[in-house]
């Protein structure tokens, strides 16, 4: 039984004086101390208590939580360690940044703090966001919140597990090829990757700049909406930031979405062979619920989505090889001591701090961009990327949303897939397309398998239809509420 089921419940408790921000914060901090799942890498106890006291002052002044002005007042959250906080250790899950203290705070985090959020700490992740199980962290794996022999998913494994284990009420993750949606699905919580450009990437340690997006992870879709409203909107510090204001997702969720006549596209390619049967049946049952509410399920095709994993493991690794060139030991990050030799030796010794998966992807990306190979690999992958985006544009001419599973299976066992990188990569086949196309996509819980492992339903929408997407997911989440 979670302390609080949602932000709304927490705020109701604050209003009724049944709980106070400082009490609640101390409670979550104690839970983190007693937890063995390794979700948090850094706990910002002092900062959290200062923020909690400030929240109490606002509460006593206003009488009740001013939900419009401070929509996240007194809400304890965890932040993926890929997001910079001024003066607070930010590691991106890597030895390379083991003791790195950023000189600025990520825009999205600044906005959440301005909205009243209490930051409990920084959350464990796959190194430089490269991974799907949180087994690639330099600081140890994260354990699944309910099944400790299983992975929580990745790369936002800490962000998902922390919410799932009730160590915070909501968290921020990042999603480049599924890194919010997959762990959300495995851990039985909700998580969303917004339309590319809707949330600033300033302060997000870059993995693949054309794919990365920051997004919320929480117990409810409404909470995801509240967090997105607070942090979305144009940021001049991010050149890829869309020229739009913040979302109005909470409003859209509250207004409700008419499901009668809603056309939901079911891609043939999203129900490929090899899916765990219980995952498929849970997803199909969820879709039958939508149908029972008057939605139309429309079979569609995304003919080039079979290339998505290939495109991703060329494009993302190419961008990563470029983005990670900055880790040279000169201005920040790991620097080996007593290096004999020239600058090249110096760089090599500094870059020894990368873990194997990171090295693997840098090599792949360097290869794909190198003279003589760039046309055959990187350029061609970008061409196929446009085909994948066109498939979606075409599909959305005849459907409003697209649905399918998040992953082929539920959470697998620790150590099960580490030996085979390609196997691990194929796990992302349903989530990658949304990143390539820049479209909003989320995971909402839709059941469990016979081992009690959670299953997520994935919903996608056209670019900038984030609010509608959340409203549709909210209806499903609340389906048993009269």
């Amino acid at each position, binding site marked *: 039984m979670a302390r609080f089921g949602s932000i709304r419940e927490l705020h109701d408790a604050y209003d009724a004086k049944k709980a106070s921000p400082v009490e609640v914060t101390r409670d979550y901090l104690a839970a983190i101390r007693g937890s063995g799942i390794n979700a948090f890498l850094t706990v910002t106890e002092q900062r959290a208590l200062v923020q909690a006291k400030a929240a109490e002052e606002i509460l006593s002044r206003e009488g009740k939580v001013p939900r419009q002005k401070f929509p996240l007042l007194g809400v304890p959250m965890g932040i993926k360690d890929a997001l910079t906080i001024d003066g607070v250790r930010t590691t991106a899950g890597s030895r390379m940044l083991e003791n790195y203290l950023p000189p600025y705070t990520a825009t999205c985090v600044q906005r959440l703090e301005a909205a009243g959020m209490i930051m409990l700490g920084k959350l464990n992740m796959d190194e430089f966001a490269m991974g799907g199980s949180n087994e690639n962290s330099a600081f140890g794996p994260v354990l699944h919140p309910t099944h400790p022999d299983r992975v929580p998913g990745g790369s936002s494994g800490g962000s998902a597990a922390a919410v799932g284990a009730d160590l915070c009420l909501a968290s921020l993750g990042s999603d480049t090829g599924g890194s919010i949606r997959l762990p959300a699905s495995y851990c039985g919580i909700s998580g969303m990757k917004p339309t590319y450009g809707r949330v600033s990437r300033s302060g997000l340690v870059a993995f693949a700049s054309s794919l990365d997006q920051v997004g919320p992870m929480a117990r409810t879709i409404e909470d995801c909406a509240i967090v997105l409203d607070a942090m979305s909107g144009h940021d001049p510090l991010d050149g890829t930031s869309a020229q739009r204001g913040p979302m109005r997702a909470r409003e859209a969720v509250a207004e409700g979405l008419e499901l009668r006549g809603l056309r939901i596209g079911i891609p043939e390619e999203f129900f490929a062979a090899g899916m765990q049967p219980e995952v498929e049946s849970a997803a199909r049952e969820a879709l039958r619920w939508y149908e029972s509410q008057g939605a139309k399920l429309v079979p569609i095709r995304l003919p080039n989505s079979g290339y998505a994993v290939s495109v991703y493991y060329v494009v993302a690794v190419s961008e990563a090889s470029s983005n990670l060139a900055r880790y040279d030991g000169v201005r920040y990050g790991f620097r080996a001591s007593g290096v004999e030799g020239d600058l090249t030796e110096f760089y090599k010794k500094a870059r020894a701090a990368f873990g194997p998966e990171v090295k693997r992807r840098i090599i792949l990306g360097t290869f794909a961009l190198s003279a003589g190979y760039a046309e055959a690999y990187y350029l061609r992958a970008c061409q196929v990327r446009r085909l994948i985006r066109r498939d979606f544009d075409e599909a959305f001419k005849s459907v409003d949303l697209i649905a399918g599973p998040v992953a082929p299976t539920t959470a697998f066992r620790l150590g099960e897939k580490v030996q085979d*990188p390609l196997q691990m990569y194929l796990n992302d086949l349903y989530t990658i397309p949304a990143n390539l196309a820049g479209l909003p996509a989320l995971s909402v819980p839709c059941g469990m398998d016979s081992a009690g492992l959670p299953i997520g339903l994935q919903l996608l929408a056209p670019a900038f239809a984030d609010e509608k997407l959340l409203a549709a997911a909210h209806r499903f989440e609340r389906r048993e509420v009269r």
Partner: protein
Amino acid sequence: MPGKSVPSAQPIQADLTRKVAALARLELSDAEVSSFTKQLAQVLEYVGQLQQADVSGVEPLGSPVELQEGGVMRDDEARPSPTSADGKPKVLSSAPEVMLDGFKVPPIL
């Protein structure tokens, strides 16, 4: 000059792994060269399927930002650099070795 053909028929050699690692300023042990070469070959074989796609006349899509309205450019405006409590530029605070207001590195040659 024609690009090199996709080496799907020829397995990736350790030599190429070493060359690419050098480009990326990564130092690999012999064991790493061996295991990476094998893994890379597997991945490259898989992504070789991209050669089957019909991309004639298709413009590469580098980023969804190209599909957004409004540009990505804005005017450069100089702003004061953040400083630490001691007045030094914050950007130097994480540097392992600083000299005056610069980052100290070994010689290039």
